[in-house]
């Protein structure tokens, strides 16, 4: 017989993912370990078969009080159902920092981050953000203070697979990196796998960000309204019927409106965004559950009224509609089915208002995907589980990339380059523990892509050896292909995202990743010291070639050039996991390299986001009950940049043209901006006002007012009368510093 059931949060009534269920036999005389399980999606769990007898079932999860149930399995009892509610452990709340993956699901290079941990960390606007927190982990970087996306172990943002309740997200961050597109109040769990991920994940080269959204509470109508200086949010949730719940969460950022009032003369870009997510959850029975998700995000960034001779705008929107159907039965299988529709649109334009059109460009990606996937978990024994599944995605892309801007380009289908393609993937993986000290995960993923004749095969292997309770040795190897390429213009500072599928000429990107390391726990497992080394190489990565030629008649792919790359480094991570003060110290030393025959005269160069040294320090402190303090400090080597290094006389253009003054540049990204470092602080106070639970927060971004360089550039004087730059003036080196000191405050009311 088996024990099945759910583990819930007693406050939110949401299922807890990853709780440990430990079953010990014959509780009167012997507490010997019998078997265990971990709760999955929605908090559900299934144990393996148990012989007749009495059992003690212990439910544990960090940040919650342990709960124990006693059960008896007899010949007539049948499968037992246990639904338990865990309550938050107030005195242990600081334990919820970064928790390692549960013992029953050993994934190398993975970290789980809970919303409780996020709530204690500083943020730019008071709006807690997943990406800002992820950036504090070793091996995770950003290209610049305001750039979108995360760069994991030398992989670019498009190489990171972002899943929201199993549905792929093309762009998980708002423009300017103000925030991710996930509202923290709607989050249930965030898992980042930094590399060598299991076979169940695919379609990307570097890493996986697996985000689970909450389902609405079935207790009563609840809500949170938060008002901040540049951003506000609201979340409502509750039951519709006994079996049907809802949650709707939305945010709006209105920084541009405040700029209009307080910074009218500022020449920095104007920025706003809106996002919302809703989830309807219907529980047919204890074995059947269906959830309908809808996410919508829209971002705008545009030129200020005081422009420098240019009119620019970038906007993107993302719409995800998905249905997730979960089925489990007493025979130890869990079946997940997902049907998704994704619509993503990105446009970016630069319009030179002077007479010249040399600087103009227009880029648009209009992408639509329909995907179906199913996977099944089979528990064969305590030591052996199998997971298998398939995924089918149909892509429809409409793309424009043009050197002049005209509004007709945004609407006329005549100018679009259209691509239809599909991906079909199958995976099989096993979790096997042949001996108590040895844990393995072996898998394979097989691909077929519509434009390619051959089938791609990807082995995925990982293994950990526990030499003792406190020392774990681990290693992993994975190969991965990526059929969709995000190709950026390197000659334009504005965002120019262009997603392009593999075609007959554009090969799928390919990576091999190897990871090795160890974990040491000490002082009663309060401290974890972890070291991981990684190496990965890339093939068939694409960028725009030098001097691309844009024309309606010229396929965009003719402007791409193919290269290879490699990334390697060592990550050190010291994590204090319990106590009144908790947090971590991380250090990464890493190298990332690219080699393209047609770029940088065929010499190796580092990408802009390469950082040799990266240090992060995170500390949370519960000063008194309801008053907490969060501090983060980060340091990294300055980002790479290509700098002018002098002028010279030369025939300016063709072989017998006239002589002119040219500018000589360094090798690509040869120079580094000054090293980056800053400290952020968050103070949060929770109280009750007018019978409503209320949180007040103060955030200070860049506490000691460090002038970190966002960019450096050579600037000439601007002649306002002629509306153009005076190139006869003496050029100066300018530095843009963003948010040297940025305090925000706000409050959130729960009802």
């Amino acid at each position: 017989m088996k024990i099945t059931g759910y583990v819930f949060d007693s406050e939110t009534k949401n299922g807890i993912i990853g709780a440990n269920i430990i079953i010990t036999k014959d509780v009167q005389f012997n507490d010997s370990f019998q078997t265990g399980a971990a709760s999955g999606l929605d908090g559900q769990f299934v144990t393996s078969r148990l012989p007749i007898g009495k059992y003690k079932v212990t439910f544990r999860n960090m940040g919650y009080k342990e709960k124990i149930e006693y059960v008896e399995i007899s010949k007539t009892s049948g499968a037992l159902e246990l639904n338990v509610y865990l309550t938050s452990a107030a005195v242990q709340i600081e334990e919820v920092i970064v928790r390692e993956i549960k013992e029953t699901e050993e994934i190398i290079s993975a970290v789980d981050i809970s919303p409780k941990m996020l709530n204690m960390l500083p943020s730019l606007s008071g709006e807690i953000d997943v990406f800002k927190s992820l950036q504090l982990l070793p091996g995770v970087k950003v290209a610049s203070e305001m750039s979108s996306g995360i760069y994991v172990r030398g992989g670019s943002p498009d190489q990171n697979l972002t899943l929201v309740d199993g549905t792929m997200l093309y762009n998980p961050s708002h423009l300017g990196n103000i925030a991710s597109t996930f509202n923290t109040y709607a989050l249930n769990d965030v898992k980042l796998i930094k590399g060598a991920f299991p076979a169940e994940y695919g379609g990307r080269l570097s890493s996986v960000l697996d985000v689970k959204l909450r389902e609405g509470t079935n207790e009563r109508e609840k809500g949170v309204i938060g008002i901040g200086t540049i951003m506000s949010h609201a979340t409502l949730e509750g039951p519709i019927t006994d079996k049907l719940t809802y949650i709707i969460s939305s945010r709006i950022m209105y920084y541009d409106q405040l700029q209009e009032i307080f910074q009218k003369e500022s020449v920095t870009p104007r920025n706003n965004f809106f996002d919302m997510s809703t989830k309807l959850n219907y529980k047919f029975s204890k074995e059947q559950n269906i959830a309908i998700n809808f996410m919508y995000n829209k971002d705008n960034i545009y030129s200020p009224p005081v422009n420098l001779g240019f009119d620019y705008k970038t906007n993107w929107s993302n719409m995800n509609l998905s249905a997730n159907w979960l089925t489990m039965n007493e025979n130890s299988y869990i079946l997940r089915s997902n049907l998704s529709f994704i619509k993503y649109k990105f446009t970016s334009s630069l319009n030179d208002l002077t007479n010249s059109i040399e600087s103009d460009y227009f880029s648009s990606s209009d992408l639509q995907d329909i995907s179906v996937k199913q996977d099944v978990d089979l528990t064969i024994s305590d030591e052996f589980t199998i997971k298998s599944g398939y995924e089918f995605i149909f892509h429809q892309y409409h793309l424009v990339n043009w050197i002049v801007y005209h509004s007709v380009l945004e609407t006329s289908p005549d100018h679009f380059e259209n691509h239809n393609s599909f991906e079909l993937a199958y995976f099989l993986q096993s979790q096997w523990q042949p001996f108590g000290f040895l844990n393995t995960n072996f898998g394979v993923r097989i691909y077929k892509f519509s434009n390619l004749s051959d089938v791609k095969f990807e082995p995925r292997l990982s293994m950990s050896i526990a030499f003792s309770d406190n020392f774990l040795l681990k290693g992993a190897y994975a190969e991965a292909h990526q059929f969709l390429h995000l190709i950026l213009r390197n000659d334009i500072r504005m965002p120019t995202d262009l997603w392009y599928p593999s075609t007959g000429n554009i090969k799928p990107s390919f990576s091999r990743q190897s990871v090795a390391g160890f974990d040491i726990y000490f002082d009663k497992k309060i401290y974890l010291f972890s070291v991981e080394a990684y190496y990965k190489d890339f093939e068939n990565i694409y960028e725009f070639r030098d001097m691309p030629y844009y024309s309606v008649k010229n396929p965009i792919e003719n402007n791409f050039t193919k290269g290879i790359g490699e990334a390697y480094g060592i990550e050190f991570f010291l994590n204090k996991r319990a106590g009144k003060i908790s947090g971590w110290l991380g250090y990464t030393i890493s190298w990332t390299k690219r080699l393209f025959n047609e770029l940088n005269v065929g010499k190796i160069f580092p990408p802009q986001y390469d950082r040799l040294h990266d240090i992060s320090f995170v500390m949370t402190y519960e000063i008194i009950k309801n008053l907490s303090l969060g501090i983060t400090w980060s340091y990294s080597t300055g980002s790479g940049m290509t700098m002018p290094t002098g002028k010279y006389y030369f025939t300016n253009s063709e072989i017998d043209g006239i002589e002119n003054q040219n500018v000589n540049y360094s090798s690509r990204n040869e120079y580094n901006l000054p090293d980056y470092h800053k400290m952020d602080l968050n103070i949060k106070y929770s109280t009750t006002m007018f019978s409503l639970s209320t949180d007040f927060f103060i955030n200070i971004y860049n506490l000691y007012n460090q002038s970190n360089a966002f960019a450096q550039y050579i600037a000439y004087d601007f002649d306002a009368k002629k509306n153009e730059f005076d190139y006869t003036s003496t050029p100066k080196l300018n530095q843009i510093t963003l948010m040297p000191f940025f305090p925000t405050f706000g409050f959130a009311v729960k009802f």
Partner: protein
Amino acid sequence: MLLGCEQIDVIESNIPFQEFNVVSGRLIGDSSSVKISFTKSFPIELNLTREDVALKEVTAYIWSETQGIFTLKHEKDGIYSPVNKLYIIQGIKYELFAEYKGERIYSVTTVPKEPIIADVKLEGEYLKCVVVPNPKSVYAAKYSIKSLDSNYESYVDSIFYEVTSKLADTLNTIEVRTSNIPIVYFENPEKYKVELILYSLDEPYKDYFSTRENNKPIENIFSEGGGSVFWNVSGKNTIGLFMGYTKTVIPIQIN
């Protein structure tokens, strides 16, 4: 609070500067006009004349296996010419040897032979020339407008639309085109004479051409800086182009 969220500072430190020797030489087939330029690069903040940056003490010569050695002497503003007359012959390889402050500079180029012209015609708004390419040569074209009436000015196109090379061994001919020509020149054949100037260039020119704009002047703050250019002159801290080419002028008959 919001006023402090951004700022643009002028950095007090100087713009990085790295000094390079710059070599520029063109060898034109069937010509004896040989001028090689040796200059040095200078900081962006400065406005220096060619005389200011001229390298006047370079020891240099051109070597050809069939024609021998031709010593170069400084004339003015970093321009060097052969002491003895050097007539550039099509199909011949020329090597440039130089030394400046103990550092050696070297380059080599072959002056292409004129190709066989298979066809020249007006294709829409541009001229197209079909040529039988020679090995290790690349091709580009300009148009030239010569006024038959003194009331109108003559004009030579300043840009190559593209540089074309033989892509596959199976192709016997390649097509070389000019940039678009204003139609007015074709509508008035009594006033203008149109010519196509075909350039046969040494093979490395194609790499230079495809990267040359990486050294364009800084235009606006939205443009990311340039990058590296393919040069065919080697030497410590030295950049430059030493290029052989041959011009073929083809008159165009407009019906």
